[in-house]
């Protein structure tokens, strides 16, 4: 027996736990500090914009024109509105088919079809966002342009993003429905309820919190999405007045301008990034609540 394995074999169970615990603790600290350091970095980069331009101008300026020198304006409200419209639109569009495909997998499809459908949904989740964006630009945008120019629009963004978040909604809804105790559906069957009545009156109400948590997780993905949105949304800084109007989201703004931004402009972009992080944090807090209580 080698000296090492001999030594390992005489370690008490408590010592093994101690090593494992410390090691896990160290890696957890590492993971958490990276997030914190990113936050610290973003705040530090944004600080000169915060002190020189001030939060008030970011909220009250009516447009975003950071390179206009003395006439520069820094309004981020149109872009925050853009992000929120695109995101909520996508969640609404993807919500119904997402939950329906979860119901199909759980209750209606024969096992082999359910497996295939699940795999297809998972595949959809794996498609890179730039592929969605490119497809949107060369296929979807020209179609919308025929309905109402210019084609690159809020609608195009909503449709592309809804495709991207559909898997998140479908898979979390499916997991939530799987979490409904079998005894509930047995009881429903004993009461003589049909399949749809069971779904509508028992499964969906019980799984409701899990499904809603999936909606919120999907929303955080949609609001952070960049590449696809840059390609299909048209990127005009404005609060859209119709589905066919182009919009610019906060993430698209950062992606398009960061490469060429200097000084004040750069700092202002970091501030918009910070605003987005705060928004996503609010989403996650909202999503965290229901998920905790679902376990019980």
């Amino acid at each position: 027996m080698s000296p090492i394995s001999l030594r390992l074999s005489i370690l008490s169970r408590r010592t093994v736990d101690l090593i494992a615990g410390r090691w896990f603790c160290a890696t957890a600290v590492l993971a958490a500090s990276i997030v914190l350091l990113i936050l610290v970095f973003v705040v530090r980069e944004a600080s000169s914009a915060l002190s020189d331009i001030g939060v008030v101008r970011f909220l009250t300026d009516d447009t975003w024109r950071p390179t206009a020198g003395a006439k520069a304006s820094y309004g981020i409200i149109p872009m925050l509105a853009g992000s929120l419209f695109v995101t909520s639109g996508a969640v609404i569009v993807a919500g119904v088919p997402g939950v329906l495909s979860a119901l199909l997998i759980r209750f209606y499809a024969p096992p082999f079809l359910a497996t295939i459908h699940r795999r297809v949904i998972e595949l959809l989740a794996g498609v890179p966002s730039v592929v969605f964006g490119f497809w949107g630009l060369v296929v979807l945008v020209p179609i919308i342009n025929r309905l109402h120019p210019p084609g690159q629009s809020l609608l195009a963004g909503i449709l592309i993003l809804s495709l991207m978040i559909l898997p998140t909604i479908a898979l979390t809804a499916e997991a939530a429905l799987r979490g409904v105790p079998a005894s509930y559906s047995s009881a429903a069957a004993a009461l003589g309820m049909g399949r749809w009545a069971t779904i509508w009156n028992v499964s969906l109400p019980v799984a409701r919190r899990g499904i809603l948590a999936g909606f919120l997780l999907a929303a955080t993905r949609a609001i952070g999405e960049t590449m696809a949105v840059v390609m299909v949304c048209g990127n005009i800084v404005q609060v859209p007045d119709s589905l066919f109007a182009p919009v610019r989201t906060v993430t698209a703004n950062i992606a398009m301008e960061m490469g060429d931004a200097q000084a004040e402009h750069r700092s202002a972009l970091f501030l918009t990034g910070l605003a987005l992080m705060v928004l996503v944090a609010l989403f996650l807090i909202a999503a965290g609540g229901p998920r905790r209580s679902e376990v019980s």
Partner: protein
Amino acid sequence: MSPLSKHLRRISTLAVVAFCGLLAGCEGLPAIGVTSSEGRDSSSDLMPGTSNAPKPLSPLSGKLTITGSSTVAPLAAEMATRFEQRHRDVRIDVQTGGSSRGIIDVQSGLAGIGMASRQLSPFEAGLTAHRIAVDGVCLIVHKTNPVMTLTDEQVVAIYRGQVSNWSELGGADLPVVVVNKAAGRATLEVFLNHFGLDNAEIKADIIVGENQQGIKTVAGNPSAIAYVSIGTVSAEVERGTAIRSVPAGNVAPTSENVASGLYPITRPLLFVTNGELNDLQTAFIEFAQSPDVTDLIEAQYFVPPNR
């Protein structure tokens, strides 16, 4: 507690402290990796080549980082590949991120050479510009658009939103979809300068980032008008993309007209350096300005400068 477990506890505590120290160290290095859209690795890129600058007579070796304009990058990458084939011990990294990024990186020493697709501004006076090629900016419309020529006044009117339908210019009854570039892009500056426009007065329907996005947008929209680098346009037209370039002041946007100086909307493609050059930087810039790379410049549809 056994001596062994005490020992282990000390080691694990040390590990945690080391982790934190490592992270705190990283925080002191601003703007590396986190801000660049293309991602670049850190430590070894700082002042490339300086630490192991070769002696005058020894063969060239070391590493050179080039960052900046996405218009110049494909050309610089081709030049770098050919240069590396001739000098086995040299490694050249070409990264994109916009002209201003290239200039900032050269000033801060993150890059040995910056790429810019516009003239240096007076604020960037301390830097040296090396012209490697010339490019033109031209307007493009969809292939099916019957409007063949546009005067400068018409272009200005379109971009100011005073003309909103192609029928006013002799085209089909389609609304004009104006495509503009994102703030800070070099092509935007060249365009604004030539037409005497202010970005604030442009009424754009769509704003794009890269040249390719502009081309794809126009190819998919029969009523759109955009402006992009002539180099990328010629390549796309040859490939059969549904776009057509529009002459400026009756001069066709061709390489010949850019070279002769007839075509009015042009910009230099520059390598930018800061202060004294090391042997590797000097050799690569001389190479990039030599006849050895003329074919590479022409393959990208740029024009070699008159030497």
